[in-house]
């Protein structure tokens, strides 16, 4: 699953521009399920199990990642941009990016530039930059040259390698939510007990958009959202402020900013973890949100649970997960997809 995760993370797919990542996922699931792409671009898959259950289960993850969209070309050849999804400017400034021309598909190296630190006032040096004070530099000498290669509306992506950090951890961009995608693809290659819908959603990062449409289409009774969530167990963070920790196993929360989860499903997850000696943790703060927010209120309501892999530095080019958390999340989800039908 690690190799699969690497391939998924290194393929770009900003919200609204998920074509490449969707094609990769299709390549991975072709032959093991029926699938179709919905009007927004979400990939809706159906896999037969040994039994057809009384109630319909949908497992989902989002395929989009945070990134950038070019908004204008300036006289000096640099580009202004907006963020697609929530990205803190402190993890944007001083990074390498790739700008992709929508029409030609050609890619250009760039960097996120800003005024040199030497030329800032003391107040400016001590404040995070505003995103609109940053620019993308692809090396164009002037506006005319830049416009030959890039147009407003083109996307830009973080670039980062996919590497091991120490012996247990992985450092990469887009772990949110390629972790979820990788677990789903893996699950789709297993023999399933029950018929199951698997949905790879678009546009999660800009407000849970893809899942709103796909949940309507699938019309499930149960939903399990596979996610990657903020772990704040970093230097200086104490107690509840850590929210969740690397190495603590899958994260199953009772509530986040978009959803109050189904209590029975929440308890079932911890029961399964206990019975199978899997580590499992909840969030110690009400923080974050994901596609569960749109799914659980879809149509007449869907009983929903989210299982997340904890990740440090989530919306940056340098997310960090502990691989064992992903393996344990996978085991938990696999058991959940069977036990959920006993409710």
């Amino acid at each position, binding site marked *: 699953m690690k190799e699969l995760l690497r391939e998924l993370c290194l393929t770009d797919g900003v919200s609204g521009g998920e074509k490449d990542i969707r094609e990769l996922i299709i390549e991975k699931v072709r032959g093991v399920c029926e699938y179709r792409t919905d009007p927004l671009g979400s990939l809706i898959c159906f896999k037969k199990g040994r039994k057809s259950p009384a109630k319909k289960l949908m497992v989902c993850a989002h395929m989009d990642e945070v990134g950038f969209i070019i908004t204008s070309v300036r006289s000096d050849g640099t580009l202004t941009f907006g963020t697609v999804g929530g990205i803190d400017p402190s993890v944007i400034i*001083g990074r390498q990016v790739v700008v992709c021309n929508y029409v030609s598909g050609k890619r250009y190296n760039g960097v996120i530039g*800003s005024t040199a630190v030497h030329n800032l006032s003391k107040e400016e040096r001590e404040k995070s930059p505003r995103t609109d004070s940053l620019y993308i530099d692809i090396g164009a000498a002037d506006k005319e040259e830049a416009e030959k290669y890039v147009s407003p509306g083109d996307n830009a992506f973080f670039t980062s390698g996919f590497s091991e950090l120490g012996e247990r951890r992985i450092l990469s961009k887009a772990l949110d939510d390629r972790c979820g995608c990788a677990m789903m693809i893996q699950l789709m290659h297993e023999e399933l007990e029950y018929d199951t819908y698997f949905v790879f959603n678009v546009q999660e990062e800009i407000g849970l958009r893809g899942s709103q449409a796909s949940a309507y289409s699938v019309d499930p009774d149960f939903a399990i959202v596979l996610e990657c969530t903020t772990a704040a167990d970093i230097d200086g963070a104490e107690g509840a402020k850590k929210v969740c920790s690397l190495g603590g196993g899958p994260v199953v929360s009772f509530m986040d900013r978009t959803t109050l989860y189904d209590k029975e499903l929440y308890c079932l997850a911890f029961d399964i973890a206990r019975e199978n000696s899997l580590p499992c943790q909840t969030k110690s703060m009400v923080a974050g949100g994901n596609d569960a927010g749109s799914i659980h209120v879809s149509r007449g309501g869907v009983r929903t649970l989210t299982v997340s892999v904890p990740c440090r530095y989530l919306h940056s080019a340098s997310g960090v997960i502990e691989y064992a958390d992903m393996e344990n999340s996978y085991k938990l989800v696999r058991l959940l997809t069977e036990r959920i039908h006993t409710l």
Partner: protein
Amino acid sequence: MNIKETLFALCSADGASGSESPAAQLALDLLREYCPDAEIVSGNVIGRFGVHTEDKPSLVLDAHIDQVGMIVTHITDEGFIKVSNLGGLDLRLLPAQPVTVHGKRDIKGVVCSVPPHLLSGSAEVLPIADTAVDTGMSKSELEEIIAPGDPITFDVPCRELLGSRVTAHALDDRSGVAAILYALSLLREMETAFNVTVIFSTQEELGERGAKIGAFTVDPDYAIAVDVSFAYAIGEKENKCGKLGKGPMIGISPCLDRELSQELIACASAGDIPYQVEVMEGLTSTNADRYSVNREGAKVCTVSIPLRNMHTPVEVIDLADVELTGELLAAFIGREV
């Protein structure tokens, strides 16, 4: 000499201030092609170019070999590495920045980034004392490899942009090193008007300390600091910056020798070498400031390569400026045989 290949090799060798050995060793190897007797003296790479004769004044070509970075100060019980800065870092860009920690072996790390829920809306930049590096290792694992005092550098590949522009970390001042090497390659078949000594100096980013002792050791009559300076992009002050691709920036300042500045300008004009003038009101914050007051004093000037995003992992230069800088230095020093 292939300028891009040389420069990318130099930028890929690490040399945070005070731990310049890998970069200095590579620069020494490259310099020996032109100065066979070059050696490392108290950290500085020093090489005499050509035959020195008593009738000629002495001139130092200096570029600093160090780069900004961080240094390990402490390992916490949770396995985070606490750090301090080496040189003038832009602390605004540290969160989630990938780094390499240079201990008994190199290990990957990432600077901790505080998630939004712990910031409670504050946009204050974290002071360096509260900054930590995450390596994915425990304290005991780390203590086998890392100790306080070990250097940390940004982990970022060199990449080409459009045209002849490139991005890398440590272009400040490996660009200067490359420009000097290129000048020497041009001068190889020529006489020189000076007894030239090259110094690739340490610890510039900590206050030009390597140049201070290097200047004393060589004791030149003239010195040219080949460094980088600010290149314009929207957001910078146009009158304080050079432009990328428009040639070397020749310094004029009360602390530089005005006659030497003028000679360099005349030399560029005569050779049709594009150049820009960089006027400074006081000290230049380059090694030139050290050479000028060395021993009984020396005549100095700056020749700078324009660069965007100084002291960041994404510095940007135009390779044409490195080439033109080398040409200017060669034109100034060389005489037809």
